[in-house]
């Protein structure tokens, strides 16, 4: 069997295996949303003076007068046809709302992940090269500290220092200065779109809005990445082929960066996948602090307004992304290390 066929087969098997969990997520969220207190029909009726008839009509229009299993069957059928229902607060299809907001969340999460990896890998490598040294302890301390400061506190303190005290960060609301021109959308990532459009002012504005929330998130996920880099580097540096490379007289830089790091990268990749999916779901707090117009903030607003469909859509989207990121990591892993497929 060729290598690519093996990888495809592995991917297909993993995808099939994750379907029951996805279905479980949909059903569980659906039931959970149905026990939410408050009657959405009353909430969306024209006002407190709305008559019983009007409320009944809305309830019927929303399908709330059916039994929960029937509602669930309708919802599953809708998902099958590619519809996630309508948001009652924005009046748009949930899918469209999520499509508009997902790039903002992805841009933030990608930026944070790149930043975190850029910091964590050198830190982990440095710590692994001198275990027990001051550097090692400093890295450990910094990581522990990062996990302990909640994102909503570190975000606010960063705003205080860089916006209020230093005055170098922009007003911490939204993705781009309101006076800057919105670039035409190609990727949905404002920084990249502005660069494509050649509008460097807009790109600078978007990038400067992105820095603080991205740093906030990156600090929080530094620990798992740096710790995994350190542990995996330590294991690789102690292995036979590194000893052989040393005995052959290869330079230290070549051993560390070419041979060791490449082999140590695999476990880090797995953790990076988990970190990415976690950040995408957990950035409700960061999005709220920086008024970032992402999917998580959208779902939170919907949840507080007992608007079912967006919350369900959001949770489903997160679970799907979770599954796909894990799949991607598995496939990359399989390509990088052929022994994985044999198992």
């Amino acid at each position, binding site marked *: 069997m060729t290598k690519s066929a093996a990888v495809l087969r592995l991917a297909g098997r993993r995808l099939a295996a994750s379907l029951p969990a996805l279905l479980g997520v949909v059903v569980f969220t659906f039931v959970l949303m149905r026990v939410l207190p408050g009657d959405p029909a009353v909430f969306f009726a024209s006002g407190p003076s709305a008559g019983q008839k009007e409320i009944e009509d809305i309830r019927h229009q929303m399908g709330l007068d059916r039994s929960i299993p029937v509602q669930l069957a309708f919802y599953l059928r809708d998902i099958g046809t590619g519809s996630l229902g309508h948001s009652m607060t924005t009046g748009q299809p949930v899918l469209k709302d999520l499509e508009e907001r997902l790039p903002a969340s992805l841009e933030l999460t990608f930026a944070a992940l790149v930043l975190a990896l850029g910091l964590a890998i050198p830190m982990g490598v440095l710590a692994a090269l001198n275990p027990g040294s001051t550097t090692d302890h400093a890295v450990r301390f910094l990581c522990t500290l990062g996990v302990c400061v909640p994102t909503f*506190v570190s975000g606010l*303190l960063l705003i205080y220092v860089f916006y209020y005290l230093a005055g170098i960060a922009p007003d911490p609301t939204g993705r781009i200065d309101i006076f800057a021109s919105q670039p035409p959308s190609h990727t949905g990532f404002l920084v990249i779109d502005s660069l494509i459009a050649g509008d460097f002012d807009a790109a600078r504005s978007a990038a400067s809005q992105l820095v603080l929330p991205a740093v906030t998130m990156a600090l929080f996920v530094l620990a798992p990445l740096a710790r995994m880099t350190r542990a995996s580097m330590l294991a690789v540096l102690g292995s036979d082929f590194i000893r052989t490379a040393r005995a052959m007289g290869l330079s230290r830089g070549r051993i560390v960066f070419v041979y060791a790091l490449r082999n140590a990268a695999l476990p880090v990749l797995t953790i990076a996948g988990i970190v990415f*999916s976690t950040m995408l779901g*957990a950035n409700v707090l960061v999005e709220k602090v920086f008024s970032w117009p992402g999917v998580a903030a959208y779902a939170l607003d919907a*949840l507080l307004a*007992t608007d079912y469909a967006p919350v369900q859509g959001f*949770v489903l989207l997160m679970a799907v992304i979770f599954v796909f990121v894990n799949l991607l990591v598995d496939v990359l892993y399989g390509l990088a290390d052929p022994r994985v497929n044999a198992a």
Partner: protein
Amino acid sequence: MSASGQTAHALYVLRANRISSAAAVLAVLLVLTAVFGPMLTQYDPLASDVAHALQPPDANHWAGTDQLGRDVLARVIAAGRLDYAIAAAAVFLSFVIGAVIGGACGFRGGAVDRWVGRIVDVLMAFPLFVLAMALVAALGNRVENIVTATAIINLPFYIRFARAEVAVRRQAGWVEAASASGNGPMRIVLGFLLPNVLPAMSVQISLNLGWAILNAAGLSFIGLGVHPPTPEWGIMVAEGARFITVGHWWLVAAPGLALMLSVLCFNLLGDGLRDMLDPRMRT
């Protein structure tokens, strides 16, 4: 190892791990502060004094006053009681339920084990903080439900852990001996297997306490669970957030520092426990 040998070993490890010892001392101090909190400050955490609103930290108000002139330090101390209680209750619940379910699954195996495994997979496919948000919203916006939600999102980890630890010990000689001397399956799991898994789970518990505090504060920060004017770290940060862009840093920094110290302390304690129980696991 004899009991005195164990104590000696623990003391040796504590001496060798200055950081863990410091964390243990800090933990005791923090808990004592929470317990005796109201006696430590002359201010009432709920009493407003508008004439002295939004004052920076000084000799009278060590952590300043908030927008209603309430003493921030008194509120941070009072909030500690609530946050520790929430975290402890949530972790206790998920530990007890998780250990029993996981223990039973690991011991019995079979269809029940497979179904529990499926449910655990579903729970773990959720973005956990979002699941907690939805649970609190669905169960009702009350403090008890922060506890329930935090317990539920922690549950899968305890179930998996207890299940794996019990499953590897199921075939051990001393389990067979216990079984041969007439102990029923309930007694074997609760009386023999779980006590052996307990030390390993204590690491999880300590790390989880810190995480549960963050979770509870995060939920209150976005307006779920605890309502003002109840002092709670998450709410205090949320209220202070409105004043951060005009430079009133102490409203965020004081509860933020309390949160950070608590979580730091439980995490270091967890790391220390792990070193004590299994030196190979050090990372």
